[in-house]
């Protein structure tokens, strides 16, 4: 996926920690130490016009058994430019009540 320019992220709902792959860091120009550490910091990088729609999609993906989360939005790159992103994901593991864990 690195060769294809696809960046990978992972969010741990229990610890509120985010991890980015080196390819995603390169895509947005951030060093490993500059990766937003939690969801709030990540959302701070989203374009204000795209944020409400993205939050709605995230909530929908978390609240149900949605097989796939997909969204297009703008992320602020390290050099200040807005980068349009096609992001896809899914909840990898759910607890007994269907919530992410």
């Amino acid at each position, binding site marked *: 996926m690195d060769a*294809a*320019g*696809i*960046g*990978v*992220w992972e969010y741990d709902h229990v610890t509120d920690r985010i991890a980015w792959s080196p390819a*995603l860091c390169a*895509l947005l120009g951030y060093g490993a130490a500059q990766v937003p550490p939690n969801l709030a910091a990540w959302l701070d990088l989203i374009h204000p016009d795209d944020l409400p729609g993205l939050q709605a999609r995230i909530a929908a993906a978390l609240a149900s058994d949605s097989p796939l989360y997909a969204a*297009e939005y*703008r992320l602020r790159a390290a050099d200040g*430019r*807005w*980068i*349009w*992103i*096609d*992001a*896809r994901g899914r909840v990898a593991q759910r607890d007994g009540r269907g919530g992410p864990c």
Partner: protein
Amino acid sequence: MIDISERKHTELLLQSQHEFSGLLVARPDRKTLLEAILDCALRLPELDGGGLYWREPDGGYRLVVQRGFSDAFFAEVERLASDSPQAEIVRQGRLQCSCRDASAHCTDPSLGSPAICMMPRPRASTLPTTYQRLSMKIGHEPSYRLQHYPISIGPYLNKPPPRSSPKYPERG
């Protein structure tokens, strides 16, 4: 995640061109046309404000439509005298940065110019103050390639404005 910026920018440019063509079909008056040109340009990413100048008979320029300017900035740039440095930039007909304080993007051409410049192109057979085409250049490498968007606006420039023109909200 993948970067789809190029596709999105192409979509936006095509959408803007389509909407602008639709406006031309309605044969707008001059004021509406100029506002539409500026609004079309400002829909592109990374642009927070801008203005269009009208060339005066004395060689100076008058700001005829603007978005996002503060009152103080508007007062400063509303009129460009014919012997002003800014008027000279326009006369040169090239895309270039006119920042008052030079910064990295002003001095390194390889970075492109994070600005939009709309230059009138005089038709050879007409008077210097009569412009038949207007070219929009968008330069912001590597997000955008330099693009030209030629529009024929000559037939609309001399159409008188209606008694009440639609007001566009000023950006904050």
